[in-house]
């Protein structure tokens, strides 16, 4: 999931260059200064060595203020109690010239106190930063809007009652828009495309004849209105194009015994429908030149960086920016979205008043980011033994009105299309195009739901057509450990999807499906019965994952953690507290999450992890304080693996560099070498037993005792690490106190205990820490950017469905899922993610659908009464089961699994409908209307 995010260093650098005091902070710590914060005050969550409930649980279950939506100006210390209310006005069509906004319906009494539009922003020098990515703030009069739902103005009322009265008159009121003539959209550039061609050598694990990893990715030429794919004799890309052409020629005239299956699939536009709508609160104090924003976003640093640049370039004075982030939820809907900038603009123009801007649900449908619809052509050739030989997939996505993450969603989608299979030859091509529909972004699944659902339906159809069992066919073709993916990269670690297939193949629901179908249909006239199965494996990570974690121990033995992780609902803050246990004997006692201020880790970056040439990176990396990226955006599926690695490295180093030496000192004390003399002790002997450290037969030592000794001796009592992963971990060599070692971190700072000698204390200049310049660093080569991915988590789902022949309604009777995610940090959180992902997948498969064009959500007429979301009765709530494979070992790392769990159920539903009806649907969702047509 490639993403652009702004590093803290870059942000502060910008702030300093602009002469602005800038602070970015999470809501909870900010609240500590503003109001009693419920999160983190409740000590009950972890007791007696046992996790009782989520750390944020008590605050959440009692309805405390945890979202920015819950905040009002009067809740914030230092803000005025008065508060204004803002409303964005969105154009409901994009087929005519927009001439004017007519607010006469409001009369004199309800006219807004402030009205902001494109002309006013232009006069004041306010522009959206990276407008190609986020879109222009407001539509321009006299032009045809580029997108349905594009804001045309923002209005502010200084009192609630006039605001609400005006809102009632403006809501759903198309008469406020004055339109000119019908007009076509001007031509626009494609959002981009890419092509991935691989021709394997004879060994699936050996050298490729051609692949993106070994050779290159094909990038098309962009024109003003589309893209142009290179010719077969292109000087750079010709070889790959010729390989692709040869594959398609084989599809056209297959050799004897080879069958070729080509199908077209369509997926719909979906609104992730985060229950928390887009919202924010802002206050600009013109006298102080201070802009304060409380917002809901998964990318806070980027917002703050852009706000700095935006305001500094305008007529508004800016001496201080305070950006506070609340708990939020979005499934990607709030990642790099434009909305926080509108909140800030409202603040700038609210005449010194705090102002609140919240989209109602119709506006949220009209403007919040969507999941891309794709048109997909897919071809698989299979030999007489059922072995897949060739694979082609071409996906055309609709990115909507603004580019946002469309280019990377397209490439991630198509490079995941292989699902769980090995293909000796493949040609994968994607393009995402602009349209007048609401902008699509980086939703949960990142395009792979759309591609893998298609693959899993096609494989099921091939099994039917070739007379093979659908799971047996999958097992013939499954990607096994060490085999290469369609990019020519070798997936990390042991691939365990075949274990899942073996379990599913023998499940009674599968083996008895024919008998059960006959029995059910006999007992339920007018109802068909089907069982469907699908299995996928989903990558996790962005190819540039970075994190910072700090853990230290006080002289009294309390473990204190600071972490970049933020909570978006998935429970990452609870999980990160727990993962230090194997090295430190218990979870951290005190913790600060969403930390964005890291004086302890004085690293810097230019944040170009995907595009820096190898030679340039080699040169930059000689600076021990340089890193390719500081931190990554918030996402549910990334935290388990990438953040856990950073947390555990910090814990491990605290044990290795501090507590272990303290223990040795205690065990060997007392003369004659103490109790340790007769036992050879190595760090690998260290074990925690009932919260105490022991090794072989040594006396178990409490953390309090170890801490006291470590501080007395001036050993390492605090560790701060920076980690980086480019489909492999960066490693570096360090020397601490004469001990040279290599660790999978790329920057390290340490804190010495109270008894440290003056030279060590003098080195602690980085926020109380001593930055340890690395001696040597090994960054994964930049060519690994072409890998697409190497980290996968596999998941399969089997569903049992009924289909009413009269109404066409398909309903889930039961379902069962299998997941492999390495070590589960908190099994209850894994299970919850699994259940929630499956429900979201059921919504995509059966219910959720937004039309494109004039009837789409950009027209402002879509709410939750029209947009069907799955409810408890729709997800087989009492009859679903799940199975998580046990980890391979206690060292098996946790894997990101929040995305993969939502995908197989989509294709499983399609395959179950095919089993029930004998006919196939190629367009999601599988609505009653479509099923009726099928029947």
């Amino acid at each position, binding site marked *: 999931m490639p993403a652009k995010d702004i590093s803290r260093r870059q942000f502060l650098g910008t702030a300093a260059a602009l002469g602005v005091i800038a602070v970015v902070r999470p809501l909870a710590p900010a609240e500590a200064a503003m109001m009693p914060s419920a999160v983190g005050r*409740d000590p009950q969550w972890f007791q007696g060595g046992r996790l*009782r*409930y*989520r750390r*944020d649980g*008590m605050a*959440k*279950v*009692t*309805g405390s*203020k*945890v*979202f920015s*939506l*819950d905040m*009002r100006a009067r*809740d914030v210390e230092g803000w005025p109690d008065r508060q204004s209310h803002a409303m964005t006005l969105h154009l409901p069509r994009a087929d005519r010239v927009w001439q004017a906004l007519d607010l006469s319906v409001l009369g004199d009494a309800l006219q807004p106190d402030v009205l902001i539009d494109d002309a006013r922003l232009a006069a004041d020098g306010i522009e959206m930063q990276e407008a190609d990515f986020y879109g222009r703030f407001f539509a321009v009069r006299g032009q045809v809007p580029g997108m349905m739902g594009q804001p045309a103005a923002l209005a502010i009322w200084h009192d*609630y*009652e006039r605001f*609400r*009265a005006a809102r*009632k008159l403006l809501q759903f009121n198309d008469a406020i828009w004055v339109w000119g003539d019908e007009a076509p959209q001007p031509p626009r550039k494609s959002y981009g495309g890419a092509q991935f061609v691989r021709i394997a050598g004879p060994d699936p694990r050996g050298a490729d004849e051609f692949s993106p990893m070994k050779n290159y990715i094909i990038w098309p030429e962009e024109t003003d209105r589309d893209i142009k794919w290179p010719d077969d004799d292109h000087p750079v890309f010709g070889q790959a194009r010729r390989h692709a052409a040869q594959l398609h020629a084989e599809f056209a005239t297959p050799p004897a015994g080879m069958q070729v299956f080509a199908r077209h699939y369509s997926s719909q536009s979906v609104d*992730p429908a*985060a*229950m*928390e709508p887009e919202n924010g609160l802002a206050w600009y104090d013109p006298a102080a030149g201070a802009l304060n924003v409380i917002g809901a976003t998964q990318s806070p640093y980027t917002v703050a960086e852009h706000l700095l640049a935006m305001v500094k370039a305008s007529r508004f004075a800016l001496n201080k920016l305070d950006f506070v982030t609340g*708990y939020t*939820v979005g499934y990607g809907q709030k990642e790099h979205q434009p909305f926080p900038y509108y909140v800030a603009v409202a603040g700038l123009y609210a005449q010194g008043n705090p102002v609140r801007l919240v989209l109602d*649900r*119709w506006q949220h449908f009209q403007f919040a980011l969507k999941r891309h619809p794709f048109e997909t052509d897919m071809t698989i050739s299979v030999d007489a033994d059922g072995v897949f030989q060739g694979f082609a997939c071409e996906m055309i996505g609709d990115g909507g009105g603004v580019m946002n993450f469309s280019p990377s969603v397209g490439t991630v989608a198509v490079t995941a299309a292989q699902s769980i299979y090995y293909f000796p030859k493949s040609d994968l091509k994607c393009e995402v195009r602009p349209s007048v529909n609401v902008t699509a972004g980086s939703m949960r699944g990142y395009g792979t739901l759309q591609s893998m659902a298609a693959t899993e339906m096609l494989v099921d159809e091939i099994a039917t057509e070739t007379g093979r069992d659908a799971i047996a066919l999958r097992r013939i073709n499954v990607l096994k450990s060490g085999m290469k993916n369609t990019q020519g990269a070798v997936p990390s670690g042991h691939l365990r999807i075949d274990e899942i297939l073996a379990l599913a193949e023998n499940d009674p629901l599968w083996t008895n499906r024919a008998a059960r179908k006959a029995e059910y249909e006999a007992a339920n006239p007018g109802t068909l019965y089907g069982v469907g199965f699908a299995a996928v494996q989903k990558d996790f990570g962005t190819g540039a994952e970075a994190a910072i974690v700090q853990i230290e121990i006080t002289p009294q033995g309390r473990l204190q953690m600071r972490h970049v992780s933020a909570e978006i*609902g998935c*429970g990452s803050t609870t999980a990160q507290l727990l993962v230090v246990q194997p090295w430190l004997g218990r979870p951290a006692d005190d913790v600060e999450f969403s930390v964005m201020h890291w004086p302890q880790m004085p690293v810097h970056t230019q944040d170009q992890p995907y595009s820096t040439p190898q030679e340039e990176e080699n040169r930059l990396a000689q600076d021990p304080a340089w890193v390719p990226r500081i931190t990554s955006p918030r996402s549910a599926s990334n935290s388990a693996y990438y953040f856990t690695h950073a947390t555990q490295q910090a814990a491990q180093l605290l044990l290795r560099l501090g507590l272990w030496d303290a223990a040795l000192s205690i065990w060997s004390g007392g003369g004659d070498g103490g109790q340790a003399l007769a036992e050879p002790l190595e760090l690998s002997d260290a074990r925690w037993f009932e919260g105490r450290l022991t090794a072989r037969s040594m006396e178990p030592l409490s953390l309090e005792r170890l801490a006291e000794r470590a501080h007395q001796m001036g050993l390492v009592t605090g560790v701060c690490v920076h980690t980086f992963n480019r489909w492999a971990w960066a490693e570096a060599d360090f020397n601490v106190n004469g001990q040279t070692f290599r660790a999978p971190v790329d920057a390290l700072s340490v804190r010495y205990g109270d008894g440290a000698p003056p030279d060590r204390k003098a080195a602690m200049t980085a926020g109380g820490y001593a930055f340890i310049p690395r001696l040597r660093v090994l960054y994964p080569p930049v060519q690994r950017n072409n890998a697409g991915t190497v980290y996968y988590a596999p998941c399969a789902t089997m569903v049992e469905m009924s289909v009413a022949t009269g109404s066409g309604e398909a309903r889930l009777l039961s379902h069962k*899922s299998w997941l492999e995610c*390495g*070590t589960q*940090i908190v099994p*209850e959180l894994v299970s*919850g993610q*699994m*259940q*929630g992902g499956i*429900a979201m997948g059921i919504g995509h498969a059966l219910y959720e659908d937004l039309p494109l064009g004039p009837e789409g959500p950009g027209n402002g007429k879509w709410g*939750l*009464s029209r947009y069907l*979301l799955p*409810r*408890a*009765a729709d*997800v087989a*709530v*009492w009859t*679903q*089961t*799940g*199975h*998580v494979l*046990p*980890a391979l*070992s206690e060292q*098996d790392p946790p894997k990101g699994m929040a995305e993969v769990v939502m995908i197989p159920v989509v294709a499983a539903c399609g395959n179950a409908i095919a089993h029930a009806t004998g006919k196939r649907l190629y367009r999601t969702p599988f609505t009653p209307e479509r099923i009726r047509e099928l029947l």
Partner: protein
Amino acid sequence: MADRITFEATVNGQKVGPLDIPADLMLTELLHEYLGLTGTRVACGQGVCRACSVLIDDGVAGSAAALTPLPACVTGAAYASGKSIRTIEGMAGDDGQGNPVPSAIQQAFLDHFSFQCSFCTPGFVISAQALVERLERAPVPRDQVEDTVLAAMNENICRCTGYVRYLGAVRDVVLNTPGLTTGDPEPAVTAAAGPAAGGRG
């Protein structure tokens, strides 16, 4: 300006008002903007997602109204005037030192790891609380508990959890609270429903 009314009510046991408010003010607006009670969340604005559920006692003895969760986003404040309103902020008790003492339903939601982002959680707490209080008056046979829980909770939409851990928690409270069910008690159910949590490996 539009017509106005004088609003007086009891909210979470506290007298509120008299307040001079617009006659068409919705109850969520009253709670959020006039009373500072923001735990009752608005997601749809149409009464279809039930994130904004509250309980309103009409003061009539034996009335079923108090036990029917109402979507406050489409319930006029005027309707609630003169009545007793319970919101999420009134569901937990207090230990006397300012710390919340969760209700049985809230504790079950904690124990079952029922929620994730928690935006919808207040609505689920209210719906489940109403169910428990209805069952106190009219218990159901134990073998009908799952159907009863599903019917009572099906109006509430959640996008994070898939409902399993919410409904499993409510089922456990109903089965394990004396007086809410009829028939022979089965052994207490304590496990969360749904995908099994395998070993930590």
